[in-house]
């Protein structure tokens, strides 16, 4: 087995430190829940959490007190409603205040691309006429040097740690994911350190539609973690647990039910 395969506990403890900027990505599909739970168990604090769609995964991390800041573009429970722990942190500073750095999806995707490309910023047609630039420092005007058109610039994302979940690693430590691949390639390539949890190790990859392959040498740790995306899913391995997403709403609505759920399902 290659050097970069280790346990989840080891990988998180080796790469995620208090105060780090950490991104756990996955767009609806392949959300690295198991890795988030390990970060919560290890009691990491003062994290700046980066993610386009905070989802239940960050609701849990925010409610558990890991985060001081959130960089994001859409903070809801997809198909269900609000993220109550995120809302409680923003509206009532519980369990601690949460700074927001708020973008649109297009802006975040551009920031990820710039980060993966080794550029300090990316350009898009976006934000013009909206209130976002009034509240978010990381949005600036930029002019096309050829046409004079006014466009928008956003700075690159380059977190300390990028964490994703994928379907497979091979015995050399290369990783393959497929189906909806989101911004996971960019997340790994833009981050200073990276962890990939996978459903399984295989002898050889077979072709899949829209497969993304990341070579072993851009990944710091690979962790075998079947089901590590639940209640999100891994295409061809599991289905999205829509019931859990619905059930999360009443759990997260109340601080006490949230705390006991976390105690029972994550901490122990």
């Amino acid at each position: 087995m290659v050097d970069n395969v280790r346990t989840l506990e080891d990988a998180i403890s080796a790469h995620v430190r208090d105060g780090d900027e950490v991104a756990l990505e996955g767009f609806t599909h392949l959300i690295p829940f198991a890795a988030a739970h390990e970060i919560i168990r290890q009691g990491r604090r003062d994290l700046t959490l980066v993610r386009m769609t905070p989802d239940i995964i960050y609701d849990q991390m925010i409610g558990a007190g890991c985060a001081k800041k959130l960089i994001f573009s859409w903070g809801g429970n997809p198909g269900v409603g609000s993220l109550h722990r995120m809302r409680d942190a923003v509206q009532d500073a519980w369990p601690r205040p949460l700074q927001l750095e708020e973008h649109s999806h297009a802006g975040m995707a551009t920031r990820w691309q710039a980060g993966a490309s080794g550029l300090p910023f990316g350009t898009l047609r976006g934000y013009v006429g909206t209130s976002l630039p009034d509240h978010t420092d990381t949005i600036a005007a930029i002019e096309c040097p050829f046409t004079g058109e006014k466009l928008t610039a956003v700075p690159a994302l380059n977190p300390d740690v990028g964490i994703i979940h994928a379907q497979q690693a091979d015995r050399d430590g290369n990783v393959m994911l497929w189906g909806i691949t989101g911004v996971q390639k960019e997340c790994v390539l833009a981050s200073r350190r990276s962890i990939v949890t996978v459903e399984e190790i295989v002898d050889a990859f077979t072709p899949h539609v829209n497969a993304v392959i990341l070579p072993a040498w851009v990944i710091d740790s690979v962790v075998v973690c079947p089901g590590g995306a639940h209640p999100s899913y891994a295409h061809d391995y599991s289905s999205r647990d829509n019931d859990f997403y619905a059930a999360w709403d009443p759990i997260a609505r109340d601080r006490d039910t949230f705390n006991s759920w976390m105690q029972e399902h994550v901490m122990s």
Partner: protein
Amino acid sequence: MTQLLDPTLDHTSDEIMTVEASRALSNGTVCFVGIGLPSTAANLARRLHAPDCVLVYESGCIGAKPTVLPNSIGDGVLAEHADVLVSVPEMFSYWLQAGRIDVGFLGAAQIDRYANLNTTVIGDYDDPTVRLPGAGGAPEIAASCGEVIITLRHSKRTFVEHLDFITSVGHAEGGDHRQRLGLRGRGPTAVITDLGVLRPDPTTKELTLVSTHPGVDVDQVRDATGWDLRVADDVSVTATPTRSELDVLRALKSV
């Protein structure tokens, strides 16, 4: 939340809103679809009058053909039957921003008379009354799609004089302001609610009530609007959902 408008009618207010939204999609249209009503309306259209409508979900699924209504914009069923799967950065740059999408569907927590939308926050940004999910894909869907269709329930809480936050630009301050901002799509062409349909005035771009749903009168719509609503000279009545529209819709929702 959904209600019968009139006990003699065979449909709910949410159903006519969905059906009317689906009618806005013509066959062959490339449509950017969000979860909830837009996804239901688009899938209804695809099963009725627009079988070649191309459904695009921001998760990267182009030409999705879900066999059941998805619960999220990234359900496996969307990827499974899509013509093309792309990454999220590619979706927003090569497809949405490049102007390849004909119609975008948006909802909102608040809308103003120029069809600008708020999905970010109610109250003060730094000390909010209600923190909403935020922008997601909406600002650039609103900016870059050929046209935008908005669906939301009609009430004084949602149809407001002044937005607490502009998440997505409709017609900005009206007239040609949207164009002057450099936004490339034509912007909102219809707002479909549970009470009726509003369209921007061709010149001022102020939303104007053009039809009410069966059983709804104009005063009801005025009362549910937080500004002095413009009403067309000849307000029509929205066509009642047909038997087949309702049957297909209910079959879709029942799975």
